[in-house]
């Protein structure tokens, strides 16, 4: 039985460690127990500021604190942190290049029962088009923890995308996380599955299914959606000829679109995007939602089989 943990828990672990960094400040919008920013608050209450249910002000306050030399992590649910405060991210943070990490927890359909109002499926797409933004979507709790730690030494605005539910641990403690570098998790020659976040472990499961059918699928984890690792994408297009992307996000605007942009400009290859097909979600368990909206390993594997025929 693989160990399971939520990426938001990885964030919480890192925030606990970062409490001892005097330059780190954390803000939240009344969701600190859910986002796990409370773990910094517990260690170091003087460097945690709850801004209440005022996300736009929270982002502005984060910008102001960052302008005084601090590294600020401002968290809430992804819909509210990244979407409600989108223009504040653009005008108060990104335009001035400030060291604010906007942490969007409970992203995607993985949020489950709270329903469509709380399932962010468009924020990666929106933030991709904001200059100066770095966008990181960790695949497991270990990667989330390492990403959060790395961001304490990184210059510029960042969006960090986390999930609610436990997902399988894929990496171990000595995994070297590098912002901007895609990670090949499995070699393959017939096609490539490029996945991010909560769908990376499903991509690996899909590759296992495909192996039983004699299809050799390469699996790549893109944790940094912006700036995206073009080389690893182009290499997989050259060497395997067909791509399936997989994300818990609208197929418009997120990883799938970013990969398609790289392919179209450099090495066109047939691509199919697995993700939410431009529809709002609904209430349900994450597993039921993934089944209904086409985000499971079965769906990824079926897409892989289809794409090979179109090579």
């Amino acid at each position, binding site marked *: 039985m693989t160990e399971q943990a939520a990426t938001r828990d990885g964030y919480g672990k890192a925030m606990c460690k970062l409490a001892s960094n005097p330059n780190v400040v954390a803000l939240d919008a009344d969701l600190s127990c859910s986002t796990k920013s409370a773990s910094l608050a517990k260690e170091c209450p003087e460097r945690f500021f709850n801004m*209440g249910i005022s996300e*736009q002000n929270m982002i*502005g306050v984060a910008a*102001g604190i960052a*302008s005084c030399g601090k590294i600020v992590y401002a968290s809430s649910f992804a819909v509210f942190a990244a979407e409600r405060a989108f223009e*504040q991210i653009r005008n108060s943070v990104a*335009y*001035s290049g400030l060291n604010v990490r906007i942490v969007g927890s409970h992203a995607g359909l993985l949020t489950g029962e709270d329903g469509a109002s709380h399932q962010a499926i468009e924020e990666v797409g929106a933030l991709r088009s904001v200059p100066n933004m770095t966008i990181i979507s960790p695949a497991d709790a270990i990667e989330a923890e390492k990403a959060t730690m790395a961001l304490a030494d990184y210059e510029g605005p960042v969006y960090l995308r986390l999930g609610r539910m436990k997902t399988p641990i894929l990496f171990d403690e000595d995994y070297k996380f590098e912002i901007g570098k895609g990670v090949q998790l499995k070699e393959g020659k017939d096609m490539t599955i490029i996945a991010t976040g909560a769908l990376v472990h499903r991509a690996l499961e899909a590759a296992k299914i495909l192996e039983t059918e004699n299809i050799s699928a390469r699996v790549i984890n893109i944790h940094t959606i912006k700036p995206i690792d073009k080389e690893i994408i182009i290499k997989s297009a050259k060497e395997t000829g067909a791509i399936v992307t997989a994300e818990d996000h609208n197929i418009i605007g997120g990883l799938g679109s970013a990969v398609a942009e790289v392919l179209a400009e450099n090495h066109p290859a047939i691509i199919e995007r697995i993700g939410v097909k431009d529809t709002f979600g609904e209430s349900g368990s994450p597993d039921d939602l993934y089944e209904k909206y086409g985000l499971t390993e079965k769906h990824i594997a079926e897409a892989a089989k289809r794409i090979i025929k179109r090579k």
Partner: protein
Amino acid sequence: MADDKAKIQALENKAKELRKDILRMLEKAGSGHPGGSLSAIDMMTALYFYKLNIKPEKPDWPDRDRFVLSKGHAAPALYACLAEKGFFPKKELDCLRKINCMLQGHPSKKLIPGVEASTGSLGQGLSMAVGMAIAGKLDKKAYGVYVVVGDGEMQEGQIWEAAMAAAHYKLDNITVFIDNNNLQIDGNVDEVMSVYPIKEKWQAFGWKVIEIDGHDIKQIIDALDVPHEKGKPKAILANTTKGKGVSFMENKAEWHGVAPKKEELDNALGELE
């Protein structure tokens, strides 16, 4: 006594010169916001030439007072003050809003020394100022944070989020001027979307409010010098006239965002002699 009078006269003279700078840079640029720059310039003169503890040669000096122009469209007023103070050469004022030049249509933190926050999108500057005040408390620094907010700008909900937060976090190191000229783009503030009564609103949000004539230098500096009540942020409700100082601009909504033409500039400069 005589000292005070001389000091006030000097500030009044300075404000007059800065009004000329504002009008000249706008005419050269061909676009920009005279009305709101002229209504704010007296309070900003008092800030930059009386109150703010800043070092133009060291814009990043960690212990500096911070000023945020939350009503960012009054950028010409800010640029006139910064140039006069020595943050950058005065000749920069001649290419306001021109391509490849330093002075942007709305303040840019990255491009312009002395600008603490990129503003222009109304309602956002106050939040950033609150952040600076929080950082000041965290670092146990003595600097003050000063803001100019517009009356129309108070229609943005974010202003009230920031006001709430300032009182909640007991930020007695922040001072907000409200430039109350009762005009916005589409007309009188009380006709477009009334924000009145202003004083009572800020008091209800936990701020100490002092109401003044926003063009009376003595009242401005007296209000600045009133110490904060412990744990309470301070707001100075400055009743002003949009376009103040130029008779044909005063109290006219249409002078919100239109630059004077050469002949209009000459007439205005003539009035400011």
